[in-house]
């Protein structure tokens, strides 16, 4: 049960910070005596958190579904022709910095949340596709052979044997994807989407360090809470499959 402790601690801290930040006004006033408005009040922090989560959830869920589907498809005999392209693209695409992808997506698709979600989704697909392919291809051939020999249908073999064995790696890919998305979503504030990055950007342009600190703490806590949840899920279900060395943005 100790594995559940860490995500719970981060989650409690996150919720406490987003609902209680405004009441910390005296603290920020003491820390930054020169600031007239030491607490960001344009939107409530809880609302910002919700907007941020919505952006992450939409692109994360879609990236998960589409990414796993692509990974499964290119490892079936009928989709094998696309496997090379999928592998090359998912590996090469990840050398593109996510912030640059965001900066390119917006001019070619217009301002606002939709292009941002699309950019987040496209980028988020890459680790999921890569890890799904890796997870499915590392299933020992002997196991597949045995399943077929026992009379499993292709679908049953996929559902009962391949996906469960590939699950830790797929989940790890999803974790990398979601953590990157949390960071990149914050940057989407630069193209006019309201997220937890908004206080930071306003703070930077208005030289209000307190705003920057408030936004940064919340984004950091969100990322740590979500990462700890993935970690707990991996430990609980698969007895720990290592943490990824992937990047964030």
């Amino acid at each position, binding site marked *: 049960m100790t594995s559940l402790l860490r995500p719970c601690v981060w989650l409690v801290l996150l919720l406490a910070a987003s609902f209680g930040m405004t009441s910390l006004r005296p603290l920020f006033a003491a820390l930054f005596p020169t600031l007239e408005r030491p607490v960001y009040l344009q939107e409530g922090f809880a609302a910002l958190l919700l907007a941020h989560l919505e952006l992450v959830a939409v692109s994360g869920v879609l990236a998960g579904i589409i990414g796993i589907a692509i990974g499964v498809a290119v490892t079936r005999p009928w989709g094998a022709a696309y496997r090379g392209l999928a592998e090359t693209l998912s590996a090469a695409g990840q050398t593109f910095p996510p912030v640059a992808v965001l900066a390119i997506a917006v001019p070619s698709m217009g*301002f606002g949340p939709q292009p941002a979600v699309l950019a987040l989704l496209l980028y988020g697909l890459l680790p999921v596709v890569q890890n799904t392919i890796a997870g499915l291809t590392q299933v020992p051939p002997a196991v597949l052979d045995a399943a077929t020999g026992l009379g499993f249908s292709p679908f049953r073999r996929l559902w009962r044997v391949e996906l469960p064995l590939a699950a830790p790696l797929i989940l790890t890919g999803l974790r990398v994807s979601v953590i990157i998305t949390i960071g990149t979503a914050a940057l989407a504030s630069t193209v006019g989407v309201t997220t937890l990055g908004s206080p930071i950007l306003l703070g930077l342009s208005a030289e209000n360090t307190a705003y920057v600190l408030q936004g940064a703490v919340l984004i950091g806590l969100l990322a740590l809470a979500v990462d700890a949840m993935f970690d707990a899920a991996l430990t609980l279900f698969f007895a720990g499959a290592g943490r990824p060395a992937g990047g964030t943005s």
Partner: protein
Amino acid sequence: MRLRPPDPVLLPLVVALGMVPLGLAFVTVARNRLVTGRPMPLWHAAQGPEAILSLAGLALLLLAALKRGPWLAILSGVLVMGGLGWIAGDVAQLQAISQPAARVSLGGGFWLMQALAALCLVEAARQTGRAGKALATLLVAAATASLMMSGTLDDLSLLREYANRRDVLGPALLRHIEIVTLAVAPTVLIGVPLGVACYRREAIGRLVLPTLGVVQTIPSIALFGLMLAPLAALATWQPALARIGISGVGMAPAVLALLLYSLLPIASNTQAGLASVPDSVRDAARGIGMTRGQIFWQVEAQLAFPALLAGLRITIVQATGLAAVAALIGAGGLGAIMFDGLFTGALDLALLGAIPVIGLAVTADLLLRLVTPRATDRAPS
């Protein structure tokens, strides 16, 4: 005679390529730099020899997909990419004659068609192996260079922004490289010994690697934000520090944050590389009488080196992207141009910053892959 079925990958890509112009604007034309442009479809834009060139390219690409000719696909794919660029450039030139202030920007249709043509190239190059990869890269570079040199693209909004910012772009690029170098060089000096320590003493590894993992998890914009206040306070408290450049904004927090991010891939890859040395090899080395130093330098370090280089590659690619974000806290570099464009709605300016960032990351990745020995062809001497 049995007919071979068409290429299952190229054919759908080519069909999609042909359908894009029906749905998406090829370019947008605006009266000036700041207003939103009107969309212009491909069939309005395409005139003259370049239209025939692009159409011929598309036809040949279709033929390549049907007949399974990857080499033809590479040639015709480049033809399509170049032809589309030429069409866009020509539209801009025509507009420039009638309305000098007008801006022609590349539209979603242009980008999607280029992306699909590029996918055709990637797939065809994959099928032909190393030679195809080299040819495709060479042809794309040659086509881009000739379009740029001939001045065909000069009236596109992107190139006009380039002309306006020419004198800023070079220094920004250098600044970007400077930030990455200042962060990565000390990271190697700290991270490699740290990785060795994590490998030698499991207790250190259990403490250090998860801690660095937490740092990696915190998104860059948040980490930059978190360093802002303490560093600013530090500079106020000790003005001497401020004089050597330590303050909440600028290079110092950017380099420091990048350094913290870079420690994990370097340290953990060093540790993993050392841990991947088989026990039997280590036992044999001890058994034949190598000293601890000889075992480390002649066996362990050499076997761990490819993993270390892979860590360095991940680090540099990652730092290149993070350095762009660092522009938000005033570190300068290419990110400054990119965010300038995003904040002011000058989207071609955003591209002008973003494209070199990607170029830098991809180049660094490519160069480090070239020098990294692969496990299979580790050259024995």
